């Protein structure tokens, strides 16, 4: 039982990182119907922006909650700028093109960031410095709560609350939801579609940037190909929850994080990566709209 609780804690920490990345996938899919394959690499870039900011701007940073927040904010701003550049120069010219073209462009951007990252940062893994005072809290019965995990929970939770506010309580959020229903109609009723899409990219990318730093804190070995697998899994989490659905993405990500940790803990870690794909297939075959999605009916 204690082991189970321990796995649950670890799984939830992993899941909240997935959730931050999955939100970006699901929001971009909501407005553009685009699987933004470069999103995992923006997550990677967030990690590296954090690392290089610490290394060159604040080399003698003291591990504290304040400094962690500073690094997270810097990484969020950097990733947001990157997201804007990608949207403006790679995706916007293709707004009217067939969807497969945008998908290929997204793959191109993803490759560009990965290999560009290898060129700039070097291909070998680098260590993410400690920016949080780390404490292992024994909460009885061999269950250990890492203070980093608490930070990950809290930061992710706060960011998700902010997002929830933005999407459901503001004018921008209403415009974004309108676009996800129908881009053309939203355009007709006077919504500045390009602006809203741009802001969507800003929000999604900054969440990925924050996730990048949190990932660096939790698993301190980072390299330019780091975004590949977590990116894909976050995407699967978004599909699991119902792609385009924000609450669904969070639930899907937490479920995926939990099930991955359980499989790694109780079965074998070699099948951990396969699990995500099995979930993907089962969800799409049995309930293509995801857990919280609604089914669209094709009309003739």
């Amino acid at each position, binding site marked *: 039982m204690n082991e189970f609780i321990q796995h649950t804690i670890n799984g939830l920490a992993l899941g909240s990182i997935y959730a931050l990345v999955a939100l970006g996938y699901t929001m971009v899919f909501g407005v553009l119907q685009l699987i933004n394959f470069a999103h995992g690499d923006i997550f990677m870039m967030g990690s590296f922006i954090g690392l290089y900011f610490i290394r060159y701007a604040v080399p003698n940073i003291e591990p504290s909650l304040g400094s962690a927040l500073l690094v997270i904010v810097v990484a969020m701003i950097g990733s947001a700028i990157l997201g804007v550049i990608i949207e403006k120069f790679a995706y916007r010219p293709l707004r009217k093109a*067939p969807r497969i073209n945008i998908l290929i462009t997204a793959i*191109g951007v993803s490759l560009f960031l990965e290999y560009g990252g290898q060129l700039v940062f070097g291909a070998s893994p680098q260590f993410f410095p400690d920016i949080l005072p780390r404490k292992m809290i024994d909460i009885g019965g061999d269950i250990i709560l890492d203070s980093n995990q608490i930070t990950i929970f809290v930061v992710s939770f706060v960011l998700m609350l902010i997002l929830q506010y933005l999407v459901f309580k503001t004018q921008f959020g209403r415009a974004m939801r309108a676009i996800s229903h129908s881009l053309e109609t939203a355009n007709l009723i006077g919504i500045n579609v390009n602006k809203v899409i741009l802001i969507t990219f800003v929000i999604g990318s900054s969440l990925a940037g924050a996730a990048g730093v949190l990932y660096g804190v939790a698993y301190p070995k980072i390299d330019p190909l780091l975004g590949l697998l977590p990116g894909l899994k976050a995407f699967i989490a978004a599909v699991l929850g119902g792609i385009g659905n924000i609450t669904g993405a969070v639930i899907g990500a937490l479920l995926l994080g939990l099930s991955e940790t359980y499989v790694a803990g109780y079965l074998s870690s070699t099948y951990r990566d396969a699990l995500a794909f099995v979930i993907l297939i089962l969800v*799409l075959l049995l309930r293509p709209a995801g857990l919280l999605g609604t089914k669209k009916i094709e009309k003739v």
Partner: protein
Amino acid sequence: MTKKLNATLLLMIGFLVGAVLLNFVLSSFSFQPSALFWTKPGRFDGLISPYYYSVLILLSINIILSVSLALLNGFTGLFTMGHAGFMAIGAYSSAYLVSTYLPTAPFVIQLAVGALAAGVFSAAVGFFIGISCLRLAGDYLGMVTLGFGEIIRIILLNIDAVGGARGMTDIPVFMNLGSVFLLTLITILVIKRIRDGRLGRAMLSIKENEMAANMMGINPLSIKVRAFVISSFMAGVAGAFFAHSEGYLSTQTFTFVKSFEIIAMNVVGGLGSISGAILGAGILTVLPEALRKLQDITGIDIRMIIYALTMILIMILRPQGIMGNREWKWLSSK
């Protein structure tokens, strides 16, 4: 129908006769092109450098993959992202069969058995995947096939008999340029024949409008499964060629990145065009190799960056791909 069959047969016979004649003429000079067909790569010194040799073989394999994906993606409109999985099944099954049961057989038998087994295994999996994905369309189909491709890879990674994470070594290397070229040409012609025949027209109609095709008496499900089976068969054969020209297999080759690469070949060349698939495979195979020189000069590895930028630029500047819907004359349907 028969007229077209005859034309294709004539073309193939003409190719063979031409090859023999060319061989005869050239053999009066110093080298024998028939060596292209009968020798193993090792004994090839002098004709082409081993580097160009391996690039040409890779090019042919990529053409097979790209053309076979065009059947699914371009003609039937089934957007799949797991082609590397089919290739992996073919590569591993042929490599395992040949190195376990036929290590010393003559190369023609090794090739025939290996490639056939690769194709059949891969087609069987393609059949299964095709059946289970029938209800899905669009991006969802892409995601499921992506998942299947990765699962195939992870399962192969966990089978000890094929080397597991270490990779599979000591695979008999017997592919030579001539046979790969010939089989690539045959693949292209088969795809062209399918496209111009009854099946191909049914596929195109499903791509244009599935419901309308259904009204016209076409069974979309059966056509889609057939497209999956044919395409995965060919991808499996390409995988077998790959295994027996490299001599080493690692599951890292067959990640979803490889599937994306094959899709990119299709889209860059022009979706829905065989010529485009060939051209796209040519560009995306040769470009990284050609840029290797640049790496020697500048000392930094910027070729993959240029490769990625080329992909993005082609998509932005020419969204329909280089060929668009057009075909080269020898591949056009009239």
